């Protein structure tokens, strides 16, 4: 099926759906205006956000008001302007904030794994990363970029972008072109390290599909876990390798012959790509004579 035909079909369906005459009723009048009388800047910033749209148009179980998050004695707050009469989520403990957010978001699929996730048990709350009233574009992040957000705690991973090889590709303006969320779901996942796939390898195959196989000649450690050999964030070695070659290969292949030839620095086993000078198809070969991954 031609690719472009599928794309055009989907776009055509989109246009129809997008233009569907189903304008919902705006609920912006009322409480929001009352709050906006004092908190004008906040409400104006808030209105075009996803939460603002929810407050304006959603009905039924998804209906949202200022009091949904800022619970308390709103009437007294209006009369006295005393901040203590309503909840200020920014001053709450992370788990309290999460409880409030999960009131609505608990049934989001990407939030399904939040409870019991590494970030939750580490005491991270929603407002550690997100901003409700003044978010940056997309995902309501508090900081401008994901790298800034995640790097504020994961310093070692952030520093990996300055290593010899890295996945955190930066352009000439310093913008990172592969984001943390390209591989991780910070809200929890079904795999280790919050990987947003069934396994580390399945995540890697989502970009490196050519390594998925199955191959005629399989390399078992490769099939089990890419991280057996690679450091995905960055490495001092080329191609994100966890160790320098040939030592990486010799971690298993210490069975004499040329695999463990000690060798001077300038021998073919040590220069350029070392073992991969000959065993280039180390991720798997489909050649009847490729049992040693060399063609």
């Amino acid at each position, binding site marked *: 099926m031609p690719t472009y035909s599928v*794309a055009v079909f*989907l*776009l055509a369906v989109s246009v129809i*759906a*997008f233009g569907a005459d189903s*304008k919902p009723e705006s609920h912006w009048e009322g409480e929001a205006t009352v709050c906006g009388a004092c908190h004008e800047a906040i409400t104006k910033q808030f209105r*075009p956000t996803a939460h603002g749209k929810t407050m304006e*148009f*959603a009905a039924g*179980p998804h209906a949202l008001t200022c009091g949904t998050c800022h619970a308390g004695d709103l009437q007294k707050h209006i009369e006295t302007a005393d901040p203590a009469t309503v909840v200020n989520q920014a001053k709450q403990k992370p788990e309290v904030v999460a409880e409030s957010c999960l009131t609505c978001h*608990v*049934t989001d*699929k990407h939030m399904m794994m939040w*409870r019991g996730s590494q970030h939750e*048990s580490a*005491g991270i709350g929603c407002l550690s990363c997100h901003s409700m009233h003044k*978010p940056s574009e997309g995902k309501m992040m508090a900081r*401008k970029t994901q790298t800034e957000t995640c790097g504020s705690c994961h310093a*070692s991973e952030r*520093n990996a972008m*300055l290593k*010899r090889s890295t996945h955190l*590709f*930066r*352009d*000439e303006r*310093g913008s990172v*072109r592969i984001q943390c969320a390209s591989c991780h779901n910070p809200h929890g996942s079904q*795999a280790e390290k919050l990987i947003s796939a*069934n*396994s580390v390898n*399945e995540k890697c195959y989502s970009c490196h599909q*050519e390594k*998925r*196989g*199955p191959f*005629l000649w*399989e390399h*078992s450690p490769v099939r089990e876990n890419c991280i057996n050999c690679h450091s995905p964030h960055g490495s*001092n070695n080329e191609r994100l390798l966890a160790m*320098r070659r040939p*030592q990486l290969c*010799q971690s*298993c292949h*210490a*069975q004499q*012959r*040329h695999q*463990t*030839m000690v*060798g001077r620095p*300038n021998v*073919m086993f040590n*220069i350029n790509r070392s073992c991969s000078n000959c065993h280039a198809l180390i991720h798997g070969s*489909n*050649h*009847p*004579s490729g049992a040693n991954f*060399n*063609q």
Partner: protein
Amino acid sequence: MKRITLMFVALAAVAFAQNKPAAAKPEQKKEEKKKEPVAEPEPEPGVEVAGATVEVGAEAVTVQGEKTFGFQQYRDVPHGAFLRRFDYILRTDGSPLSFTIHAVDLMQADMRVHADGENFGKFDIKLDFEGFSRVWGNHGRSVLSEVQRGVFTVPFGLRTSLENATDAALPGLATDAVNASSQVEVRSMRQRGTITQTYNLKPSLTLRLDFMQERRSGNRPINFGTFIRHGQANGDTFETPGQELWEPTAFGTTEFGAALNYAGKHWMAGVEYHGSLFYNHTASLIYQNPFRATPASATPPSTNPQPTTGGASGGGSFRGRFAELQSSLPPDNQAHTITANAMAFFSHASKISGLVSWGRWTQNQAFLPYTDNPAVVVNPGQAGPSAPLTSLAALPQPSLNGIMHTFNGDFVASTRPFRPVQLTFRYNDYDLDNDTQQVHFPGTVAVLNSFWSNFHTGTPGRPNVPMDTWVNSFDRQRVSLEATVKPLKDLIWKGTYQHERWDRTGRQVDVENENAAITSVSYAPRSAIFLEAGFGYYDRDPNLYLDRGGLENVLIRMFDQSQRLRKQGNALFSVSPRPQFILSGSWFYSSDTFDKSLLGLHEMKSNSFSADASFNLERFSFYAGWGYDRNGYDNMGATGAALPPPLRFSRDTREGIHTAHVGFTGGYAHGKGSYQFSYAVGLSRAAITTTNVDPVPLTSQLNSEAFPFPTVKSQFHEFRLDTSYQVGKKVRLGLNYLLEPYRLNDFANDLTQPYAGNAVSAIQNDASRYYFLDIGPTNYLGNMVAAYLRFSF
């Protein structure tokens, strides 16, 4: 690419024509007046209501150095005029419709465009286009030319002259030929377009459809090596008529999926399908051997000493005398995955969730023949097919018909029986079954088109390993129980017990179990202070090591299967004595110790430290950070003719890398101007120490004696200066400057030349006939300056 660009522009134009932002504009202006002075060229966080931004300018780039690719490793940096940014946002108060488009590096091959149209509560569509460029190397030279995709040739006259050259004349002839050849640049490009649509069929029922098409083009480096062996009194030496050339990456991937989710009041459930089809438009890679015009096989055993390896057929000397070689490339493959998930939640912050996923991966690309070297034949006395080895009819089957099935099951139960205690139970099972039928080959063409062998070439004493494919499967189960307790208001203690079990088929260890205890404590007495420390202890215990009759010596333990003791520790602090000032630091330690009575990896340790400080005033902010990562890994290897006794040697590597960044941002001229300066540095060092454990006899000096290795060092610096000034109501003028010096001392690259002649071979065994492209990384100095005008309206 142009079609996609035009599509986005057309969408934007249509949306712009329907724009009704009149009500929003005055509010936006009012808000802008209240904004603090802009401290950075990029916009501050905040969702814009409506408007457009266009950034145009020009850029100049100079890169000095022999190999300059590093500066543009991940980006096709443009020279000259650019349309760098185009943003269009349409949101109207009171309307559920919105449209946004964000584009950077427009009209460039690695541009990025994201468009989003939404009818709130009903429908959402996201369109993305992303381009990634990857420069692998430049200024390399090769006598090979790619005459069609995946076919590399060398002039017949040159091959004849190199084949017939004397040993003394060969280096000069080959070097001259390389110097006269054209330069090669190896670079690849990935372009991906994605459409994601979400339909809210009902408030609680959501349907998502997604479609992705990816195209990969260009090349990446690949090596093909083999060797010629010469027996010597003090060990064997090798010649290596290998090649480094460029593999075409003419790949395509189509992915599609659908997901249906239902959210109830206290539960949710969903089902999802995802398909991925990968195509490699280059069936194989064929290259001619620059050193050979006449195909020949390895020297048969009757005229040379019978080698200790290589099977009964021998072929120990003068390997690699093929005139042409055909290699396989990644085959087409398909993957289909179905996932079902459900979750229910109860009182006391309790939930149970489950996710099960089934996958099916297939691959059935036609095999290539055993060899395209007509000189390789089945020798008398050897088992083998009756058809010529160059014929597909000689193969036992035409293709693999490879099938793998995967299953992932993840189940979580979490509850907070009373406020200070949270308990989480988790069970995960990942199973990969390789259901491909084992293939038995009567033999193989060994060591790159050199000779027919009935067996794997392998470890001394194990010469007769049959040519059967290895069909390996595994099942990994992990169960954990975690308790989080708050004994005090500001104190959190966390303890986890985890058990992991691997069950493998076809590998040396079939069952292994790992028990782990992990604990941490964090203390946050005030919002300005956070302290945390943790420790983990993991004990992996494999079942008996099974001698599968393969190549491996029983003294070896694959590090991913062997006994392992892992200890991990971490500490973290963050202090903010004043709201404007934050100081933080972290430390992480990991130590893996393997069974030292065996060969292979013995120890792997890492330490990382970081310290960060930031200071934020109204119109000025400053940040600085430092990190140090230290990795060490110790191996024990063995050389010699047979085990035991081995000739053991230890090889230890100690890597260290300092990274630091410092910068400040500020504003001037009452907020009209802004500036940002940053400096980042990465300094790495790797020291490799090799020592002999056992005395080396004279007859093994060449292969077994330890030599010192040079220290590997790299230095990366990056200076950035960005400034911009509001020259008009809607116009901002900006300037970007980048200076990037990079230095690398790595003997693995420094000793690589397109054709080294005998300069290297005179020392020990050699790379004298290895044709490297010589495109590896080296020093460079990059400069980039750009001036732009940003129009906002």
